[in-house]
């Protein structure tokens, strides 16, 4: 039972990171229709940016996080301008392929700059052990869960109450109508990419603290896809719940069996959801008119 609870908590911690990354993913997808296969790589970029801020510039942890977030935001905006803006209105596969190409470039560039060995942050978030009865919890897990909850609520408030958030929701709902009522869709797209990259970078910081910083982080980021689909491709709360579900499922099956079984369990779950409820657990079924 204790083993189960420990796995559950670490699953929720990893899952909240997946949820955060999935949130950025859904945001980009809703606002710009870009299905971003490079989300996992942006996560790795976030982890490396954090490493640079800590190891090269010697910033304190809090400042390093802020610097990483700002850099990631700028990177996201640049990607939108340089790569995705010229591809606007192209078919699905073209855009997907561009994001895959981006992922090739990022993976190559990271190894060229940092080498392929594992790095770890010189200073991390506090990681002491907290004991509750027989249950031993890592402070890091709790902090990550807390931070993810704060980030997700912050984004929720942003969408609900700010003018820019409203514009983004309008663009996601109906791009043409939003543009007709005077919303600068270019700006909305750029902001969406910035926020999507920032959430990926935050995920990278957290995963980098939980594990090591290495190019394989981008493959872990790939687990954001099942999270997104399970939750519903267009639902923001869905992506968070999907992330938590996938995280728990993965940690439990990795704990009771092994890592290879975990990916089978996760992707079987994905397939099941796709076949039985393609719109995801919280998504709305899309009505198509031809």
């Amino acid at each position, binding site marked *: 039972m204790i083993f189960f609870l420990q796995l559950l908590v670490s699953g929720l911690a990893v899952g909240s990171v997946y949820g955060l990354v999935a949130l950025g993913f859904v945001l980009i997808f809703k606002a710009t229709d870009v*299905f971003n296969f490079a989300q996992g790589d942006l996560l790795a970029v976030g982890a490396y940016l954090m490493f640079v801020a800590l190891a090269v510039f010697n910033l304190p942890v809090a400042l390093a996080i802020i610097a990483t977030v700002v850099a990631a935001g700028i990177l996201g905006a640049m990607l939108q301008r340089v*790569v995705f803006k*010229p*591809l606007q209105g*192209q078919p*699905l*596969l*073209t855009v*997907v*392929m*561009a994001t*895959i*190409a*981006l*992922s*090739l*470039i990022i*993976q*190559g*560039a990271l*190894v*060229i700059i940092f080498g392929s060995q594992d790095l770890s942050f010189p200073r991390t978030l506090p990681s002491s052990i907290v004991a509750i009865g027989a249950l031993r919890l890592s402070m890091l897990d709790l902090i990550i869960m807390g931070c993810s909850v704060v980030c997700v609520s912050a984004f929720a408030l942003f969408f609900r109450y700010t003018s820019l958030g409203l514009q983004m929701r309008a663009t996601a709902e109906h791009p043409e109508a939003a543009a007709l009522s005077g919303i600068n869709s270019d700006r909305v797209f750029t902001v969406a990419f910035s926020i999507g990259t920032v959430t990926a970078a935050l995920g990278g910081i957290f995963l980098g603290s939980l594990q090591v910083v290495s190019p394989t982080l981008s493959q872990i980021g*790939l687990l954001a*896809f*099942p999270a997104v*689909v399970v939750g519903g*491709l267009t639902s923001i709360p869905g992506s968070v719940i999907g992330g938590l579900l996938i995280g728990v499922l993965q940690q439990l099956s990795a704990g009771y069996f092994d890592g*290879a079984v975990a*990916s*089978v369990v996760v*992707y*079987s779950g*994905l*397939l099941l959801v*796709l*076949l039985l409820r*393609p719109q995801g657990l919280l998504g709305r079924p899309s009505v198509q008119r*031809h």
Partner: protein
Amino acid sequence: MQLRQHLDTDYQRQLRLFGSPGAVVVAIVAFALLMALPFLIGRGTLAGIGLAAINNALIAIIGAVALNLLVGFTGLLSMGHAAFFAVGAMAAAIFGTQLELPFPLVLLASGLCGAGIGVIVGLPSLRLSGLYLLLSTLALHFLTLYAFLQYQLYNFGLSGVFYPTAMIGPIEIGTDHRWYFVLVACVVATILIARNVLQSREGRAFVALRDHPTAAAALGVNVAVLRIKAFALSSFLVSVAGALFAFNLGVVTTDAFTLHFVVAYFAMIIIGGMGSLLGSVLGAVVWEFLPQWLASAASNIDPATPVIGDTLARHQAQIISVVMGCIIILVLIRWPAGLAGVVRSTVAAIRSWPYRS
């Protein structure tokens, strides 16, 4: 919109193997060149390309044609390409290594296994489309690879699945030279099959399905059956390519079939041109040869050169992946129709000379 230079005025023109006398000449010259190529190269290299690399490119052409049939012509997005390669390799191990069937029979059996799995994988496409189909095939990718890994560990162990030397009748296909001719025959067969299917009722229905599923259904195309047929045909060809790939290599592990593998094939058909057989061939050739050229260009640069020299020497694979990524994005933005589109517009410009096309 460009006016087509030649309009087919009767059905016989559609059915002809060669569109014009010029095409016959081109085909004969191409055939002669293909047959002469291994003797021109011998044991050395031609423009930095050895025979082994050419053989890899030939296998890639089969894979690219098959993927283009599914994605480029029928419009079904599938990330299951590496999975079908793995199915082909696994079937080849069962029929070739374990049951010791003759090689041509192994190829056929692998293809049929692939087609069977393709039908199963195609089933979600009846409910899902676009992105959802892409993700369901992504899930199948991981499940198939897990199955392959278990099969490999259970029967062969960590070092990988072993394949015997391929035999056609009494002839042993042990050298790159002999492989070349076998693979050329397979490539020509694949292209002819694809070309004939595309000119049949089914093939035209594939394209209709891609362009407008509802309109296709209204014209009497059975969408469900046709999607399954497309999956079956494509995965048959991919699995044959997988079996060839496995026999050519001799030893295969699951590491061969990563998502990078899938990405590479998508890159081939995008660089070459979606929905074009010529494009599949060009894309596969460019994708296989360009890294070789890049590598040999990089090795000409002295490692002592400041800044870039050292990086070039140590991270060749990564630099190639960055360059290829940039090329994909550039092609997507500048030439969405790929190399085949460039060829087509050049031919059109020459034909209509001195008028502008």
